[in-house]
C-alpha cells in the first residue's frame, strides 16, 4: 500500500503498535491509558505547551540546553544542575547515538561500560533501555518541562516509552531525523515511522494530553539556507497536524547574519500559519525555536562565549519562543555540566537584557523575508504538484527529484546537488541551486549576491568559498575570506 498523508485508522495503528512495543523488553511497560492518567497529573509549569504559550504571549525567549548521559542518577544530577545553576527554562534529554539507530544491544553495552568506567561512555541517555519508570524518575526529579531530543529515524518505541514516562515534548520528524541522521533509510520509511509517532501524540491529544512536537530545524547545521529548513519544518508540521498533533514548535538554525536570521524566524511563523490555514489545521499552537550557531566553533572558550552570545542576541531580537543553547566546550565535544551551565547563563543574561528590544521593519528585512517566502512557496507548491495533492508522496518524489535538497547530508536519499555560500554581508545564499524549483528571479538574486562577494574578494564563487565559510566561525570570522 502506497503511503499517504492521511490520519491513521486506530486499528491499523494498534496493529503496528503491537510490533513496536516488542522491539525491546521495556516496551511491555507501556500502558496507554495509565500513561494518559500519569501525564494528566503533570502540573502546567512542567508542561511544554503551557510554558511555551505563556512565553509567546509575554514576548519572552526561553532557554534550553542539550544534555544527556548514560546512567539515570547521573542524568538527573546533570539536569538538576542545568535547572538550578544554569537557570534553564526548559530541559532536554538528549538520547545517545546507539538508541538513535535502534541499537539497543550496543546501548546496553554502553550503560555497562559506563558503570564500569565511572564516566559516561554514551553521548546521551538511552531512554529505551532504561524504560518507563526510569523516565518518570527523571521527570519527577525536576521542576521544568522535559523534552526528548535525539536524531532517530525510527523513534516509535522511544516515543512510546518517553511519553509514557512523562516527557511533554518530542523532537524530530520523518525528514529532519532522516536526511541529516541516516545514510541508508528511505524517506518513505521514516515518513511512515513518524506518522506513527505523530498519531501517538494525536492519540494523547484526543485523550486530553497535549504534547508538543518539534521538527528539527537546523538539519545538517551547516550553512542551510532558511528556505530549505523552512520548507522541511512546515511540511513536517503539516504531516504531524494531519495525525492529530495540535502543538508545534518550528525550528531554524542561526546562519549568523542578523537581518537574515530575524527574517527567517519571522517568516517561519508567518509561512506556517499560511500553510496551516490553507490545509485547514487552524487550531494548532505554533511557536518557534532558534538554534544558536550549529557549525564549527572556536576552540577558545572566551571566543565560544562570543558566538553563543551573538546567537542569544539574535534569538531575543527575532523574538523566537525559545533558543537552544551551545556551550563554550562546543569545539571540544560533549561539554561538562559547568560548561553547559555557562552557555545557558550567558544566554540568559542576553535574552533578559534584550527582552524589551526588537528589530524594526526595514527595506532589507522586508526583501529578505520576501525572498524566503518566495523560495519556500516554490518548494512546497512543487511538492504538492509532485504528490498530486498528497504531501507524503510529494515529499518522497521531491527528494528523488532534488526539489528538496539538504546541503552536506549523509543520506543517500538526498540528491546533494545544492551548495550554499555566504554573501558579502554573511547571509547564506545558494551557490548551486541544483534542482530546486526556483524561478529566474530567485536564481539571479543569489547569483548577484555571490558575485558581489566574489568581486570584493577578487575570486570566482567556488567550492573553496564554501569550505572557507564552513571553517570561518571556528577561526573567528563569519565570512570565510581568502587568506
Amino acid at each position, binding site marked *: 500500500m502506497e503511503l499517504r498523508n492521511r490520519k491513521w485508522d486506530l486499528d491499523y495503528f494498534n496493529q503496528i503498535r503491537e510490533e513496536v512495543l516488542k522491539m525491546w523488553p521495556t516496551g511491555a511497560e507501556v500502558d496507554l491509558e495509565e500513561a494518559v492518567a500519569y501525564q494528566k497529573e503533570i502540573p502546567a509549569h512542567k508542561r511544554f505547551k503551557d510554558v511555551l504559550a505563556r512565553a509567546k504571549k509575554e514576548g519572552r525567549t526561553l532557554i534550553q540546553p542539550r544534555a544527556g548521559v548514560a546512567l539515570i542518577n547521573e542524568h538527573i544530577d546533570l539536569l538538576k544542575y542545568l535547572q538550578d545553576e544554569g537557570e534553564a527554562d526548559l530541559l532536554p534529554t538528549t538520547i545517545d547515538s546507539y538508541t538513535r539507530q535502534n541499537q539497543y544491544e550496543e546501548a546496553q553495552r554502553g550503560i555497562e561500560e559506563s558503570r564500569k568506567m565511572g564516566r559516561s561512555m554514551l553521548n546521551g541517555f538511552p531512554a529505551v533501555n532504561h524504560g518507563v519508570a526510569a523516565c518518570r524518575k527523571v521527570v519527577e526529579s525536576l521542576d521544568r518541562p522535559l523534552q526528548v531530543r535525539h536524531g532517530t529515524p525510527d523513534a516509535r518505541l522511544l516515543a512510546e516509552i518517553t511519553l509514557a514516562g512523562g516527557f511533554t515534548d518530542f523532537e524530530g520528524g520523518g525528514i529532519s531525523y532522516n536526511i541529516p541522521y541516516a545514510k541508508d533509510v528511505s524517506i518513505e520509511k521514516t515518513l511512515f515511522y513518524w506518522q506513527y509517532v505523530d498519531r501517538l501524540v494525536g492519540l494523547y491529544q484526543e485523550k486530553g494530553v497535549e504534547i508538543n512536537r518539534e521538527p528539527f530545524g537546523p538539519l545538517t547545521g551547516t550553512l542551510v539556507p532558511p528556505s530549505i529548513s523552512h520548507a522541511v519544518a512546515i511540511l513536517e508540521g503539516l504531516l504531524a497536524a494531519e495525525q492529530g498533533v495540535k502543538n508545534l514548535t518550528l525550528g531554524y538554525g542561526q546562519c549568523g547574519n542578523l537581518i537574515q536570521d530575524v527574517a527567517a524566524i519571522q517568516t517561519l511563523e508567518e509561512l506556517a500559519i499560511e500553510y496551516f490555514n490553507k490545509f485547514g489545521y487552524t487550531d494548532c499552537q505554533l511557536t518557534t525555536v532558534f538554534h544558536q550557531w550549529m557549525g564549527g566553533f572556536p576552540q577558545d572558550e572566551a571566543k565560544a562565549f562570543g558566538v553563543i552570545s551573538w546567537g542569544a542576541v539574535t534569538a531575543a531580537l527575532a523574538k523566537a519562543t525559545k533558543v537552544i543553547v551551545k556551550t563554550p566546550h562546543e569545539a571540544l565535544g560533549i561539554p561538562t555540566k559547568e560548561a553547559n551551565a555557562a552557555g545557558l547563563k550567558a544566554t540568559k543574561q542576553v535574552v533578559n537584557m534584550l527582552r524589551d528590544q526588537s528589530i524594526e521593519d526595514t527595506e532589507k528585512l522586508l526583501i529578505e523575508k520576501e525572498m524566503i517566502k518566495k523560495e519556500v512557496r516554490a518548494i512546497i507548491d512543487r511538492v504538492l504538484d509532485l504528490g498530486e495533492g498528497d504531501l507524503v508522496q510529494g515529499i518522497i518524489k521531491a527528494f528523488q527529484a532534488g526539489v528538496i535538497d539538504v546541503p552536506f547530508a*549523509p543520506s543517500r536519499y538526498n540528491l546533494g546537488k545544492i551548495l550554499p555560500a555566504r554573501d558579502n554581508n554573511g547571509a547564506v545564499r545558494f551557490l548551486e541551486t541544483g534542482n530546486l524549483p526556483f524561478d529566474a528571479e530567485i536564481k539571479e538574486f543569489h547569483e548577484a549576491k555571490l558575485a558581489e562577494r566574489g568581486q570584493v574578494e577578487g575570486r570566482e564563487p567556488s567550492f573553496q568559498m564554501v569550505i572557507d565559510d564552513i571553517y570561518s566561525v571556528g577561526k573567528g570570522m563569519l565570512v570565510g575570506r581568502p587568506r
Partner: protein
Amino acid sequence: MEKKTLVLGVIGADVHAVGNKILEYALTEAGFKVVNIGVMASQEEFINAAIETNADAILVSSLYGHGELDCQGFPQKCKEAGLDDVLLYVGGNLVVGKQDFEEVKKRFLEMGFHRVYPPGTMPETAIADLKKDLGIED
C-alpha cells in the same frame, strides 16, 4: 608517480557528514585517490574497502564521542586481515566530555593507531602527515 589510495570514513553510528565531504575534497585536491565509504561505517566496511582497493592508509573520523567504543580492537582486526602495512589515522571528537587530549592520544596510540588528531584539526595537517608517512615529496 602513482596516486596513493586512502580509505576515508566516519565510524560507528556517527552521521556527521560535513567534515567527511570536506576531507574527501581536500584529500583529492592534494593528489590522493580517495575511497570514501561515508558516514556510519563499520570496522568491517573500512577493512573490506582497504583490501579491495589495496589502500595505503585508512582515515577514521569520529565526531560524536563514541569513538573509543567504536574503535576498540580495530587496529588488531586490520592486522588479522593482513593490513599490516596500512597506516591508521584517527581523529575528531573521540571521547565523551572534555578530556586531556594527550591522555586520549595515548590511549589510541596504545590501541595501535599511527596518528591521532584532536578536535578542530584542519585537513592540511593530516595531508602533511600523510605525505611524510607515505614518503611523498611536495
